[in-house]
């Protein structure tokens, strides 16, 4: 009896409330901070160290690069070699949005973006290459301000 009344109270309370319908896509959703929509790549920070691709539990990051030799800066100095990124792709049909790649990146080249509208008709189109991943960087929100009292 007590349980029955409890249930009826919930019904009555809901009955008098207005229903909440989000008018997506006419109105944009109000996403919480740190929403995980898509991953953006800041290619100039990437050193092709392969850490993200190796940490990825879903094996969905593909990186190809080549070595380039830079001439010595000062006379008699040593030649420097560096890696040049040729391909960086994330297959979002496999990605599980764990964010381990972003955590693993020691050079801050990967970022979360709240952008989520990138559905495709073919599964292959979900593999985002470097240019598209770079485009997502425009949608990455600025980092949140450090709270007062936090160690810096």
């Amino acid at each position, binding site marked *: 009896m007590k349980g029955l009344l409890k249930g009826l109270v919930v019904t009555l309370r809901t009955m008098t409330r207005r229903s909440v319908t989000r008018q997506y896509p006419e109105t944009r959703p109000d996403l919480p901070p740190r929403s995980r929509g898509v991953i953006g790549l800041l290619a100039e920070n990437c050193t092709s160290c392969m850490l993200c691709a190796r940490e990825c539990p879903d094996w969905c990051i*593909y990186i190809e690069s080549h070595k380039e030799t830079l001439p010595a800066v000062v006379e008699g100095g040593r030649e420097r*070699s560096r890696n040049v990124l*040729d391909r960086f792709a994330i297959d979002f049909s496999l990605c599980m949005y764990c964010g381990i790649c972003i955590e693993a990146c020691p050079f801050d080249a990967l970022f979360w973006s709240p952008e989520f509208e990138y559905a495709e008709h073919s599964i292959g189109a979900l593999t985002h290459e470097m240019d598209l991943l770079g485009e997502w960087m425009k949608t990455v929100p600025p980092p949140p301000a450090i709270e007062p009292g936090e160690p810096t």
Partner: protein
Amino acid sequence: MNETQDVEPAEWIAALTAARDARHCDFFDFLTAVDELEDGIRIVAHVYSTSTRQHLLIRTLLPPDALVLPTATTVYKGANWHERETCEMFGVQFDGHPNLIPLLLPDGFEGTPLRKDFVLASRVAKQWPGEVDPGQSLTELKKPKRRRNLPPGVPEDWTRP
């Protein structure tokens, strides 16, 4: 609040009945298994008491040559699907189960996918993207190498030579 109870397979039903009746564990949460390799398969059941708010984990270790256990559906009716799943995923038989047919796997599927010796086709068929070294392209991987980068967590005998 949380307690773990290890019992012999022969005491399995008695332990579950005692949990339900003597310890008032009226809520059956789940039943599953853990592959303990050469030690056999451990069956785990989690029950909870909504009155005393006590959690109880009951476990039993089945030797690899006798993966049979009497069904827990006689004690907790809700164990039905859990046992069907444990049967198809680990190959454990539940004697007296009313309907021990596969629950999740497609028709005609062979093998026990949650056993540790089950080879994951997707990990064998696909090349590990992390095998490429910095400054390398995928085509360079075709050349013979002194040392091969191996994916962590994947048994070495899965990957083809």
